[in-house]
């Protein structure tokens, strides 16, 4: 400390360094990094859908070629891994939503459980609609 009690200038502080592998130290950090990583697979599914729509918009041969490519082992494997990450993305973000949204109905705070349940209900309704659309 300076004699006048001002800013400490002669402190020899130890500044810890953060390891590159900090996210492997705790389960919660690891899940967070996986959740961040999952957005790459969300982007992949968007690209996949665009390729699919493009093939459908061409002709029957283009559609056939897309199906052949899509059923190749590496694309299938990529989609399986992608699905796992997208599910993680969905579940983790659904769980976090009540923290991000303070919903009040008639002055009362809506319980977190209701917000999460509402999202899952929405997911089921949309999935059922898409399923109906594809299989009818």
């Amino acid at each position, binding site marked *: 400390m300076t004699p006048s009690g001002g800013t400490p200038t002669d*402190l*020899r*502080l*130890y*500044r*810890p360094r*953060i390891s590159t592998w*900090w*996210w492997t*130290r*705790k389960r*919660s*950090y690891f899940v*967070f990094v996986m959740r*961040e990583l999952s957005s790459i697979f969300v982007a992949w599914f968007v690209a996949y859908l665009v390729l699919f729509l493009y093939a459908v918009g061409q002709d029957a041969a283009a559609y056939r070629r897309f199906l052949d490519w899509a059923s190749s082992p590496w694309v299938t494997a990529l989609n399986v891994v992608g699905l796992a990450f997208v599910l993680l993305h969905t579940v983790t973000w659904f769980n*976090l939503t009540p*923290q*991000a*949204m*303070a919903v009040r109905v008639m*002055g009362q705070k809506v319980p977190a459980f209701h917000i999460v349940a509402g999202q899952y209900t929405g997911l089921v309704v949309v999935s059922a609609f898409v399923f109906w659309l594809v299989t009818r």
Partner: protein
Amino acid sequence: MADSIRLRVSRYRPETDSGPHWQEYDVPLRKEWTVLDGLNHVKNEVDTTLSFRWSCRMGICGSCGMNVDGEPRLTCGTFLSDYEPGPVTIEPLANFPVVRDLVVDLSDFMKKLPRVKPWIIREDDHRTVEPDVEYLQTPGQLDAYQQFSMCINCMLCYAACPVYGLDPEFIGPAAIALAERYDLDSRDVGNRERLDVLIEHDGVWGCTFVGECTRVCPKHVDPASAIQRYKLKAAMETVKAFLLPRGAR
């Protein structure tokens, strides 16, 4: 229950050490003893050179935060018996420079906190108001911000936040939660001033919603929630600024 438990304590003496090293102490293990009681036993009976901060011993002052077995904790509320058979590792709070042993330098937070203006801002100049004027609130108005007012500045949220660890410019969880506390106060009109600070790069947008700040908070303040709510506010302001004519904002 065993008679004693081993504390593995991080020591750093700036005048002689180039970095921290471990020192072990055996302390009596009693059902009602917290980690802080163990450290005070060491300080009083074993090794008077050990440095750490503490004051109230009852989770109010927020001085005794340390990393216990890698988790930021208030040591006065963390019981030794939960770590049986030991050893219990005790380190200074992560993400802060270490002054000595378990004492960290909090001046970074002290610089950041006033930037969010954590006080009631009113349109009327407080000097013109009669001193005995009360600004009444309904229980509902109190309830809107009360949770965020429980913060004791213990810095556990900063120690848990990897964003703050990697980018010390980030203004951090407690400062944003306190900004939200005053924004939600019905007596306050300072929202715009705080938003101008928090909308910057080192404000709310630094947060990637790890959520650890909320998990470690001993007062259940939920800083992660405050930050996400602020992001929503900031985004709405940007949209408004883009869409509405100047006078309507």
